């Protein structure tokens, strides 16, 4: 089975070398993003840098009331999206610092040494989660698999890019994406998404969003290195009591074979608008073709049986 599609994990499962499997020889190491949301400050510099560098048109000017998020989500003209989530939850052992009268110290029985001890009162837990979302550049990218024209392709860096001169706007990739990333620009007709700044990568530069990020929340680099760095960061956060910290999209054995752009999150993925257990739809495609084949034969056989049963009209047989 090692030579078959499934055995080589070309449709699903752990696939160590997607660029090599796409036919690239002597290709550079697979690169990606590690977005550490625990240090995101919600400045949206990534959104702006992305728009500027890639010359993306305006994507609507709306005031949503969704915290500071007026961008709303990824789409054809939004390749980075900073999510803002306000929660009444503690962040590790940190003080929210929003209570007028902070009862934490007294209740914990600890006298604050810095003279900042407060009078009695209920602390208000508040944490403000911010996360910069982006195309995941999946190991098994459904958008790429279902693209009928070959406009979507795997680059030598292991990323997934749309060739705008080939795309005919069939829109198949849009519902295929399990993350709701790629979308059609209606006035243009074609689909668009993050290219991980393919042009910059080719020139040895890091993507615009990572370059612009002032807190290194968006880290760019070889995927292996990022994964190691992320594991270390989670360990560090767990040690200081931020037990909510978890990695999303890091596991090469997950439903999409691991993401090229993965995240450190502080809550469940769905809180950030991410699917909790995405699976590349083409994992089941061999089974779909089999079922369709049986259905087609059922139709052919059923109708043949009908004609066989009825024979020629009016007893001409």
């Amino acid at each position, binding site marked *: 089975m090692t030579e078959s599609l499934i055995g080589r994990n070309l*449709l699903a499962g752990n696939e160590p070398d997607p660029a090599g499997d796409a036919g690239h020889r002597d290709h550079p190491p697979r690169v990606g993003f590690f977005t550490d949301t625990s240090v995101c400050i919600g400045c949206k510099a990534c959104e702006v840098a992305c728009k500027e560098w890639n010359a993306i048109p305006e994507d609507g000017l709306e005031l949503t009331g*969704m915290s500071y998020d007026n961008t709303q989500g990824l789409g054809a003209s939004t390749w980075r999206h900073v999510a803002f*989530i306000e929660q009444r939850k503690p*962040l*590790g*052992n940190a*003080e929210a610092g929003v209570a007028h009268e902070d009862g*934490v110290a007294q*209740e914990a029985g600890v006298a604050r040494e*810095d003279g*900042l001890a407060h009078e009695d009162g*209920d602390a208000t837990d508040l944490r403000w989660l911010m996360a910069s979302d982006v195309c995941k550049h999946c190991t098994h990218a459904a958008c790429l*698999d*279902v*693209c*009928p024209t*070959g*406009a979507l392709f795997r680059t030598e860096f292991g990323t997934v890019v749309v060739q705008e001169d*080939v*795309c*005919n706007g*069939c829109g*198949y990739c*849009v*519902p*295929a*994406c399990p993350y*709701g*990333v790629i*979308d059609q620009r209606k006035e243009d007709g*074609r*689909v668009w998404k993050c290219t991980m700044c393919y042009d910059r990568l080719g020139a040895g530069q890091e993507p615009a969003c990572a370059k612009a990020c002032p807190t290194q929340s968006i880290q760019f680099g070889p995927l292996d290195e990022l994964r190691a760095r992320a594991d270390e960061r989670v360990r*560090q956060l767990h040690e*200081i*009591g*931020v037990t909510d910290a978890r990695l999303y999209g890091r596991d090469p054995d997950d439903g999409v074979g691991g993401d090229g752009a993965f995240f450190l999150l502080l809550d469940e993925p*769905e*809180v950030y*608008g991410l*699917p*909790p257990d995405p699976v590349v*739809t083409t994992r089941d*495609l061999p*089974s*779909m*073709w089999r*079922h*369709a084949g049986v*259905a*087609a*034969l059922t*139709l*052919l056989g059923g*109708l*043949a049986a*009908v*004609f066989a049963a*009825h*024979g020629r*009209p009016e007893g001409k047989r």
Partner: protein
Amino acid sequence: MSESDVTKDGIRGERPDREALVGKGMPRRRKGRRGERAMVPEAKFTSYYGKPVLNPPTWEPLDIAGYFFLGGLAGAGSVLAAGAQLTGRRSTARALKISSLVAITGSAAALVHDLGRPERFANMLRVLKPTSPMSVGSWLLAAYGPAAGAAAVLDVTGFLPRLGRAATAGAAALGPAVAAYTAVLAADTAVPAWHGGYRELPFVFVGSAAAAASGMALITSPARENAPARSAAVLGVALETAAAKVMERRLGLVGETYRQGRAGRLMRAAEALSVLGAAGAALGGRRRTTAVLSGAALLAASACTRFGVFHAGTQSAEDPKYTVVPQRQRLEAAG
């Protein structure tokens, strides 16, 4: 904080900032004693401001559901045409060949019309990708379309009868694939109501296709030739209805998208019309008027099924519940 931490002796209570070690050195919080306590159990699922996780299909319902319907009508029609020809039902065969040609032309036109860049439709044949049902379908149409066209034109004109028979046979061989592959086209997406039903959807679609083509045969052919069409109508409706029921049950929570809203209305209409059409065809199909009315009901039922499936998919993609809850359940089941 009412006073500044910056003093003449430097900064008081300085915390490491480079690594953003939030809360480092702070006392461990005691759990469960302070703050608000939830009085109601936590909601079944969370989402980001109710926004969909997926980007819903950008396809126009009229184009793509219409394409599903017409593709099925054409594909199953070619099989019926070949059967009619083999059993000496000349006028039925001719009528279905013509309807298949018209239907497949219409479906191809709908597909091109739905493209964001229609002038680039030929890019569909730029590559052949087994992982893309739309690529496979394009090649299938590229083979089936000319066969169906030749079958119709040669039948009507009477030219090259041997080639006409070969084209009829070719269209009949490819027709079931044309009718079935559109189910894979829909199922091979992240849309919960489509992907979750990938086992049954091809049977729903071929059943619906058989019903539509039988309906067309009942309308266009004389009563003395329509006995096979009447049986095929019953067969198609039975297959479609049964497969749809199984699919809805398998889908669990997501199955409700086939019962609610516009999709629910269309699916209920499809069921009622197809039962009506099949019963009419089976019981009164020898009478021309009943046959025509039954045929029309069957065609309408098939169209309702395709539009119903289409809208169920859109509804399931637009509500994050149908993406998040099944995935959560899967994670919990896996432990």
